[in-house]
């Protein structure tokens, strides 16, 4: 009995440690792989196509309908706000020309998450 209890306790500890790490990678640190993928999604003409309207470092022939995406951490200290802007910009500005990527199923929430992680590095 004692052994089992101790085993469960340590198991719970390990599990919480793992899930803690899991959460940490989800919220705070974006992995290099996610950022690289976010960049690909943002630049892809059929997916994010952000370059149609925004100048972005590393992107060729950008448009200028929207503001250049620079100093994003300073403009969006709160990552969730950045994600919200990309998911549905019409919430902030009903007349915006920027597409509602989330509600109109242009991008999945997973894709938006990666794009936001990339944009946050700019």
């Amino acid at each position, binding site marked *: 009995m004692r052994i089992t209890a101790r085993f469960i306790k340590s198991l719970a500890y390990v599990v919480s440690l793992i899930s803690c790490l899991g959460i940490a990678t989800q919220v705070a640190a974006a992995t290099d792989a996610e950022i690289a993928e976010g960049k690909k999604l943002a630049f892809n003409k059929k997916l994010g196509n952000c370059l149609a309207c925004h100048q972005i470092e590393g992107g060729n*022939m950008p*448009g*200028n*309908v929207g503001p250049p995406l620079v100093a994003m951490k300073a403009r969006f200290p709160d990552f969730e706000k950045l994600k919200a802007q990309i998911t549905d910009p*019409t919430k902030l500005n009903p007349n915006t*020309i920027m*597409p509602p990527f989330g509600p109109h199923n*242009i991008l999945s929430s997973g894709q938006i998450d990666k794009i936001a992680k990339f944009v946050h590095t700019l």
Partner: protein
Amino acid sequence: MNKIANVLTAACLVVTPFALQATPEQDLKEFRQLFYNKFPDVPKDDFVNGVYALDPGSREQWEAFEEFPAYEIYIDKGEELFNKKFANGKGFADCFPNYKKGVKQNYPYFDSDTGKIVTMEEAINKCLTDNGEKPFKYKKGNITYVGAYLAKLSRGNKINIKVPDDPRALAHYNAGKKFFYAKRGQLNVACADCHIAYPGSKLRTNILGPALGQTTGFPVYRNKWAGKSKKGDGMGTLQRRYTGCNKQVRAKPFKAQSDTYKALEYFHTYMSNGLEINGPSTRM
């Protein structure tokens, strides 16, 4: 059902006066002023040149292009088609008695007999079918050649679209207006977003042109259309352009000469009233 219909009618009666508050004349005044304010350096007559009125770089390229315009042979083809007698001995000149003075500036117009809008393309095809001939296809080909010839003869005439004081005419006008300002397609972008809110800005490498004067140069020859297929010769009607602009925002385009596009063309062309016909023209 009746009750619902009554409520709906009542709701419409309440809403309509507000929605229609602005008369077409007032709309037109505001519409123009917006562009005059936004582009104070552009001469007012120059809006007929679209993007090239705003961007000196592409204008230079375009002017070189217009020196030996690719549409010239299609004007000639159009003239030939126009003068070819129908099997019954009549011809297009019988349907367009004023063609030499130019007629393009009056299209599209509201026909008070039918309550419908008539575009120039429809008038061309009606002339054919009334005389027992097969109609042309809309959007490209013969219809653009005859259209180019009629536009050429109308060059310099000022667009003169009338919205008579008839609820049916106003209904077409308002439907077209609503279409122009409505968000559309998966990307959720209105004509007005691109051509009123952001003319002069770049969407990727495309500079957006102003909505004012947007209809004066049609039919047009476009490099892009010429490159599209071996059969494509680059010529297209205004409504062919609508199709393309709808597709850009992943909206399902409407049929050429559908009531929807005709209403749009009616509103859209009315907004260029007073500007000179300069079709056919070349566009990238």
